[in-house]
């Protein structure tokens, strides 16, 4: 009778331990996956923003959009020297 009790107790403890740790590890992994996904999404948003901004900056021409437009005759200047 005794060895049976011992074996059953041993097996129950072993299986219980394995199940408990398995459950805890899975829960932890699920939480981690959620956190990682959230951070990755945030990174992706920033990367996209930087990329878009870079593409606009690269196509920008200072001379074309600023200097030429500003060089216009100012007729309101009237000097009596």
């Amino acid at each position: 009778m005794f060895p049976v009790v011992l074996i059953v107790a041993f097996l129950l403890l072993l299986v219980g331990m394995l199940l408990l740790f398995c459950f805890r590890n899975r829960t932890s992994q699920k939480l981690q996956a959620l956190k990682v996904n959230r951070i990755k999404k945030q990174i992706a948003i920033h990367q996209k923003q930087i990329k878009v901004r870079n593409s606009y900056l690269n196509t920008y021409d200072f001379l074309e959009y600023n200097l030429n437009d500003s060089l216009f005759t100012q007729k309101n200047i009237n000097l009596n020297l």
Partner: protein
Amino acid sequence: MKKVLSVVFLVTSIAFSQNRSEKLNDSAMVIYKSNPQKAVELLEKALSISEENETINAIAKSKNNLGIVKRDLGLFTEAKTLSQEALNISEDSIINASAYNNLGACNRNLGLYEEALTAYLMALKIYEAKNMSSEQATVTNNIGTVYSYLGMNKQAIENHLKAKDIFENADNKKGMSEVYNSIAIVYANDGDLNNALTYFKESLRLEEALNSPKGIAESTNNVGAVFYYMGEIDSALVYFNQSVKAERAIGNQTGIGATYNNIASVLIENDRLKEAKAYLDSGYYYTKKAKSVADIETALHNYSQYYEAKKQPQKALDYYKSFTVFKDSILNIATNSKVAELEIQYQTEKKENQILAQHAQLAEKELQVKQKNTIIYGSLGLAFLLGMLGYLLYNQQKLKNRQLKKEGELKTALAKIETQNRLQEQRLRISRDLHDNIGAQLTFIISSIDNLKFGLKNATLKTKEKLSSISEFTSQTIYELRDTIWAMNKEAITFEDLQARITNFINQASEASQDVEFTFYVSETISAQHTFTSVVGMNIYRIIQEAVNNALKYADATAIYVEISEDIDTFLIEVSDDGKGFNIAETELGNGLNNMKKRAREINGSMEYHAAADTGTQIILTVPKNPERKE
């Protein structure tokens, strides 16, 4: 976890002790018929273990078993006390039934028949409730025996018959055979030979079914004896002959001789002398062979009677003399043989006791070994569990560390990219401000000055030159502002990008100064994809621009040579001209050269210049390939 382990240990230790106590009880009950003292010793030990563990039923069982053994030793009062104590504390009905049965047996032996009957009936009630048929039958048979002692043969027979029915239902052949014999004896004592014969025959049938030669021989003899008392000589002889056959089968020569003697005696009594002679001789032969003196004596007496019946008085007298001489002689022989027999019996018992004691010791050792094994296996199991627990904890911690590391890396990357994004945003805001406000204002100034020059028709040459100088300076400021914005908005500049910008600048300069020959040479070994930071790239470009401007403005050069080459760790940039040069010792350095030096220092580079009157000027800029920005 600690609590669970404590419970396991507690369960383990209690189970151990209970198991040990049970084993001792069982061993004692196996040997108590042959070695009651050892049995008492084992039971006292079992009782002590049970009392230590305070397990009530185990205490009750040990006490009751002790009572049974004491009863067997004839200590009825003590046995009664023990069984009564067991009965008082026991919570197990089976133990109670056994205790009642033992009380019944003790009371019967003490002559307290009424109390014995009461106790037996209590035991019977429990066994009936538990449906334990074999025990029921045994108790019922015991009740029958009490009635037999009381001379109440009818009731005795009734109970024996009940026991018989139960044994029959349970198909317990040995039990049935014993009950039949008991019934037959009651009937025989009552003078009811017919019923006695029936039950002896039934017993014989069962012994035959059980194929027990000894039982068959004894039962056949009993049947033969009943026939003899009934006067049915032929039937008696048939059963006697069968008994002889059975005794032959088991090789019991004493039994064969004795039965032949019986047959001979019966035949002589019935004047069948011719037949009697052969049995007489055979009886004498086997009894002599078996050296069974009592049977030899009977055979000699049979011979004497035989010759007397045959009217041969001389021979009858001779055999009678032999019979009396033998009888006298065997008185001593009988005594001696009895002593020897007792001695043998004593030695045999002693040896048997030793064997039984050894068996008990072996059983105890076996128990100890089992106990040790269980402790070892239990410890191993526990160690395994602890190891497993450690491994699982370690694994879990490892997983957590891995997760934290990954999370940390991602958070760092997020912080970095957030900073980068914010920085870029700031840069863009600043550059937009510069571009929209300062750039526009500067262009407005240039435009205003040009308008002013155009409007001032009476201005002196000096005034116009001054206005041109301001306009040029403002244009230069715009270029610088433009470069600053360009550098600010660029994270990195490739060598290819820088080369294109320098080429563009030289082309513009070449167009503006068509009498000067420009050469721009780039070493083929330089990788076009090499990247500079925007600050380094801008400063290199500025230095080249300043050097070329200086050559154009002050040197009156006809050829300007720009070369970019590389060493192991550095880029070498050379700007030289064939102009009028200058004397380094005598010339005070202007803002241009100082600015160039300052820019070179800012990018961890160095700048050298070589010049002399009428030999041209050579400026060499050395820039590390991977310069660390100066704080």
